[in-house]
């Protein structure tokens, strides 16, 4: 039983709507909140590659950032290497920040345009005061080469505006790994890159994980990609996890009706394989005004009367997955 690198327990992250002075004055505690993450529990094991899937607005990015304490959770607990980090203040989080990093989605806005590559990748070392000046620069050069920017000296002086999208993303990755973290969150790391260079970045991330034993959380809406690189996948809908399990189970044998719809809607490049898309009625509803019961019920093709009564729990299903659907209540035992 491997160690648990990072665990989230019933984490909720809320965003207040209308946060300006006048609204605050007139609302008197009645403010509307968007429950971006509404009670998520998951565990990522050491060395594991965990994929977080779902459509836009489901809360996957917010969850990823909450785990890194880049967003404050409203409720719930977060554990890193067994230690609770939910309430730690900025200073106490110092060590954590050395260990856990993020790779952003948009290579065009995730690098400070005024920083040269060297300065940008070096900054984490400076902030954490690791090594002498010479050592820091050497480490930066070494990291640049590790991410495929060779020769490092040709890249160190460049500004982001002089680099292509793929190169910028590599710089972002370099900055994330220069502190030798043990956990990385990748937020749609290739969705803004041209298709022919995506594979190179994915390959790089996989190799880095293999070489360093890092644990990783990959956030993406692209199921084909997640199947390729992840050990386990969690599917989110409107702020909650609806299904979690081994990657091939999720893709080949989805249990939750939403996952089934998602998988069946993914276009298949193989012309010999047909798919039968499950159509969902309507659009994703407004997360502010959720009806009681299962939040997927209004669109679920398998909805039953009981679904609108109470929000279902996660139930274990065969193959090592769990699904949040009452279809699986009787035949299998309950999980958390």
């Amino acid at each position, binding site marked *: 039983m491997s160690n648990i690198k990072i665990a989230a327990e019933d984490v909720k992250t809320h965003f207040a709507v209308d946060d300006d002075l006048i609204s605050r004055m007139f609302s008197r505690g009645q403010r509307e909140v968007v429950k971006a993450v509404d009670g998520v529990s998951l565990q990522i094991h050491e060395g594991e590659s965990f994929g977080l899937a779902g459509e836009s607005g489901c809360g996957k990015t917010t969850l990823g950032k909450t785990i890194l304490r880049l967003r404050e959770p409203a409720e719930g607990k977060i554990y890193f290497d067994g230690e609770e980090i939910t309430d730690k203040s900025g200073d106490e989080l110092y060590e954590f920040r050395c260990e856990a990093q993020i790779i952003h989605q948009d290579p065009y806005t995730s690098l400070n345009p005024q920083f040269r590559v060297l300065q940008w990748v070096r900054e984490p070392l400076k902030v954490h005061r690791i090594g002498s000046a010479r050592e820091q620069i050497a480490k930066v050069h070494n990291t640049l080469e590790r991410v495929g*920017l060779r*020769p490092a000296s040709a890249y160190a002086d460049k500004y982001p505006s002089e680099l292509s999208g793929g190169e910028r993303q590599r710089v972002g990755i370099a900055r994330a790994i220069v502190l030798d973290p043990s956990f990385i969150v990748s937020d749609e790391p290739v969705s803004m890159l*041209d298709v*022919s260079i*995506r594979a190179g970045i994915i*390959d790089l991330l996989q190799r880095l994980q293999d070489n360093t034993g890092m644990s990783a959380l990959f956030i993406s809406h692209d199921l084909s990609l997640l*199947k*390729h690189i992840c050990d386990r996948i969690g599917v989110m809908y409107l702020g909650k996890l609806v299904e979690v399990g081994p990657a091939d189970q999720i893709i080949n044998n989805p249990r939750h009706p939403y996952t089934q719809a998602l998988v069946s809607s993914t276009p298949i490049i193989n*012309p010999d394989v047909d798919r039968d898309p499950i159509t969902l009625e309507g*659009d994703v509803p407004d997360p502010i005004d959720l009806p009681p019961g299962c939040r997927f019920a209004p669109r679920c093709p398998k909805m039953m009367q009981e679904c609108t009564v109470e929000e279902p729990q996660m139930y274990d299903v065969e193959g090592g997955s769990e699904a949040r659907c009452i279809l699986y209540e009787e035949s299998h035992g309950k999980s958390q």
Partner: protein
Amino acid sequence: MLTIENLEVHYTTDEGDVRAVDGVNLELDRNETIGLVGESGCGKTTTAKAIIRLLATNGRIAGGSIRFEGTELTALSDRDLRRDIRWNEVSMIPQNAMNGFDPVYTVGQQIVEVIRAHEPDTTKRDAMRRARDLFEELGIEGDRIDDYPHQFSGGMAQRAMVALALSLGPSIVLADEPTTALDVVIQDQILQVISDMQDELDSSMILITHDMSVVSETCDYIAVMYGGRIVEYADARTIIQNPCHPYTLGLRNSFPDITAESQELISIPGVPPNLIDPDEGCKFAPRCPFAQDECWEVTPTPEEFGEGHIVECHRAEEVDMLQTEAAKRETWVGEERDVGVQRDQRRVRPVETEQDSNSHE
């Protein structure tokens, strides 16, 4: 129905003319769907925009011909093109639906405007009714024709855009990345809707996208573009399962296949070509692991390779070798498992000569 011959489209910039489209030949028949795939900057959007003359102000058709049902589109005046061709014969679904609508008018008003601009005898009421019917067919509540564009979600707005594009029953629909910004469930619905409408209207489509899985499912034929030219063209199945051109082979390698048990994703090293002052020879040569001397010196011409299968490559006959070697990672990246990007090198030489290229080390 639509024949494009030797199309050349240039953009004027400070650094010189960008040859965005550099000799494209394409034929589209009735009720056919052709997919245009390629990286950004390969010229696919420019080609589509050139057909209905929606190029940016610094763009112009520098050569070639576009013939639609016998009429030479490049020779038409702007007014004639606008009146006779745009929207009612050839319409376009742009990439970002939100930007396609005027934010100060309701969506219904905009559809009505388009209908009445081309069919002036239609009354406002009839036009509104047609708009409402279209919405219903596309799965949007009819009442929403009175809503403003910002009141629509991304998926709905795109559907409204499709409604607008189809409002006059065009013969050709140019869809420019119609579902790129959308989630997969909605993407599927929209593609289905477009396909249904196509059947009903008996119209054809040119679908521009970088997503090979989408073209595999929706298109009859696929044209692979690189550096402003079509480097390979064939029916969809051939392109996916039996491609010849090294670029197509490389593209195939970089697409995750959800049905595959395990797969090695291999990327194509190097950077897109310089279209301002292109060198002689094949534009893909700098990134092609199979490039030989001839490839650097002589621009390949399109040759028919099989039934309706056109390839632009000097080494196309060696297809078996190309396919076998292209499937191997070492072909693309050499001994190092990940070559990254070689800086300051316009031409990334293939594996054997790597020692020569590192002169700045």
